[in-house]
Structures are given as structure tokens and as C-alpha cells.
């Protein structure tokens, strides 16, 4: 069986015939070449695959492509400003050394952007709780917390 789906990915319309078992992460990476969305686990726990679905962060490895039919998907490739200017959250990760190997970073940044929009405050505890769905094996999180606070402040001011 294959199913016809139509969705928007980073602002561009996408139409495909897909096998129902195709994951959203596989659609993005293997079919659309958007390999910025990483896959770090088989257990839906690491958050490296986080994208925004209609504005809310979701794990694209825990969702079927057919479930995204009719939705608006935003990936790490879609957040930079015109002519490639880094998104304020990306800029903050660079400025505050919020990454080492960078594997978790696309998911961290997508999760952090949602956190910046929804968190009631930017206390350390709020940021750490808001990033519970994203694991990093390198940084020890200290600089990620700093980066997220700075990025969120920049987003709120900008």
C-alpha cells in the first residue's frame, strides 16, 4: 500500500506517495535530503530528530510521514534568516559553546525555540526541564543552558 500525502516543509509544498511505515524522519532525511534532522536512538528518547509540526516540537522518529499529511513541518534547515543569517538561537549556541560534536544540536535548537516561545521564565530549572526530551552526550549541558537562555532572550527582544 502507498499513500499520497501533501505537506509543507520549510515553507515549500511537498507531495509524495509513501509507504505507511515511512517515518517522518526518513521522509525528511532520505527522500528530501534534509539531513540536518539527526537520528540518535531507536527508543524515542534522545530528541536529536526534533522538528516543529504546526509550530510544536515533535520527535520525527516517533511519527509516520502519513501522520504529517496536511501539516506544516519546520526543520533546522528552515530556521535561518534571509541570506543565511543564523537564527538567534543558533547564534547563541555558537557564541556560548553550546555544542561539541554537534550531533544533538539540531534537535536542541528546535526544542529550545519552542521553549523560548512557551516558557513562563528563563530560570535554569525551567530551561533544564524544558529540554528533558533532548539528550547530549558531550557538553554536560552547562553551556547549552547558557546558550538557550541567551538565545531565548534574543528571540524575545528581537
Amino acid at each position: 500500500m502507498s499513500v499520497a500525502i501533501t505537506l509543507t516543509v520549510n515553507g515549500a509544498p511537498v507531495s509524495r506517495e509513501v509507504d505507511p511505515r515511512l517515518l517522518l524522519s526518513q521522509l525528511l532525511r532520505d527522500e528530501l535530503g534534509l539531513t540536518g534532522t539527526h537520528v540518535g536512538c531507536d527508543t524515542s528518547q534522545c530528541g536529536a530528530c526534533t522538528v516543529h509540526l504546526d509550530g510544536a516540537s515533535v520527535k520525527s522518529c516517533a511519527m509516520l510521514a502519513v501522520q504529517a499529511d496536511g501539516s506544516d513541518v519546520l526543520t533546522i534547515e528552515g530556521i535561518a534568516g534571509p541570506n543565511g543569517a543564523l537564527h538567534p538561537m543558533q547564534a547563541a549556541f555558537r557564541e556560548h559553546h553550546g555544542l561539541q560534536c554537534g550531533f544533538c544540536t539540531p534537535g536542541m535548537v528546535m526544542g529550545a525555540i519552542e521553549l523560548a516561545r512557551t516558557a513562563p521564565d528563563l530560570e535554569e530549572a525551567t530551561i533544564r526541564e524544558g529540554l528533558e526530551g533532548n539528550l547530549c552526550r558531550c557538553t554536560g549541558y552547562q553551556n547549552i543552558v547558557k546558550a538557550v537562555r541567551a538565545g531565548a532572550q534574543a528571540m524575545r527582544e528581537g
Partner: protein
Amino acid sequence: MYGFDYHRPAALSDIVDLLTADEDAKLLAGGQTLIPTLKQRLAMPTSLVDLSAVPGLREIVAEGDGVRIGAMATHAAVAGSEVVRAMLPGLADLAAHIGDPQVRNRGTIGGSIANADPAADYPAALVALDAVIRTDRRDIAGAEFFTGLFETALLLGEVVTSVFFPAASHARYAKFPNPASRYAMAGVFVAKQGDVVRVAVTGAGPSVFRWDAAEAALSARFSADALVGLVLDDDGLNSDMHADAAYRAHIVGVLARRAIA
């Protein structure tokens, strides 16, 4: 993942028909349990029947002396709902601490209770608040819904459509989350409705259960002090790499006191 067919009908009756005609078809809600299960090849359904196109199942509305939550309401929607926060803030708080933000944006109350994971959070709220589960064909009392480890009273093809929670003068949940998964190593929901006190425990046994001795003590005097010295019998409690039965029995006592204060 093994292959499967996929259907997304907009009529609830079509969903029920598809599920009843084929016992190897599976209902798909938020997918936060089902899709990881399929990825690990722990299940091999012939088809997935997606509930997301049926209208009205995400609604959260005040109804009589309580709140009705649609089966497809996400954990994030329950956590953020004005109606739930006003009437049962302890329930909103429970939803706000399920898993992580991404899981809460997809996972649903219907999926959580139908799955009946022994470490899931919602079962404690349903039992403590004496909720009523509405399906496509009947109403089921919270006390009768959870029948065992991953077992519920749902029949083949039966679909949860909403859950009704009666209001309470006290409703609070305290859990000891597993540091990796956030599932409850133990979780205790304490509710008081009129003179009735219920203490429901999840995560500690094969299925949610009520702690009678704590209920009796709290009915006599509704105060955390009333539980001092009371220890849950650890016979039959879960023992695993995270915690043994005696430890779980101990934290249930601690959590029950926290759920009152």
C-alpha cells in the same frame, strides 16, 4: 518496522468497523507508544487505523460538576487547558510532567489509558478522582477500567472517546520519575470529593491500585501527619533494576504525604 496498511477515516463508526473486522488492526492515536513498539518489531499489525481525523475528540470542556477531556487531547493540551487548571490543577500538573515536551505534544490521554502501562501517570488520576471513561458504546467507571498489566476493560474494537473527571476539593499527584524515561517509578494521586478520600498508586504494582489504609487514615483526619508511620505492604510490588519492592513501598508513603501537603 513490518509493513502495514493505513486508514484515517473521519467517522468514528468506520474506525470501529475496521477494528472489529480485523483483530490484527490497531488504533493509532499520538503514536508515542505504538510507533516505538512497531519500530522494535514488538507488534505486527495488519493495518493502523488513525483516530486523528475524527472531529471533536480533542475537546476539553466543563460539564456539570467536572470536566470532560476528549480522548485525542494531548498531554500538552490538558496541561495548558484553562478549564482543567481552574477545576483540577493537580490533573493539569500531572499532564505537565508526563515524559518530555515532544512526547506531551503528541501523546494523548486516550492512548495513555488504553495502553495501561503500569508506570503511566494518568491511571492514578482516573482511579483517585473516580473518572468515567466514555467509549464508542458505553461508560466505564475508572475503578473497573484498569484490569491488569497492560490490560483494560476495553473490548475488541472499542474506542475511548473521552474521559469525565468529577471536580474535587483536593486533587494532587506526586511522582518519583525514572530519571531517564520520566515514567513513574511510583506515583500517588490523592483526591477528596465530599467525605470520600481516594489514594491511587501507579508505577509500584502491575497495575494502578488503591491504598486502603492510607484512605482510612486520611478519612479520619485529612493531613499529611495522619500518614506518619503507615507503611505500604510491599508484597506483590514491582522489583526491577530501578528499585526493589521495599524501596517502592517506602517512596509511596513519601509521595502520598507530598500529595496532601
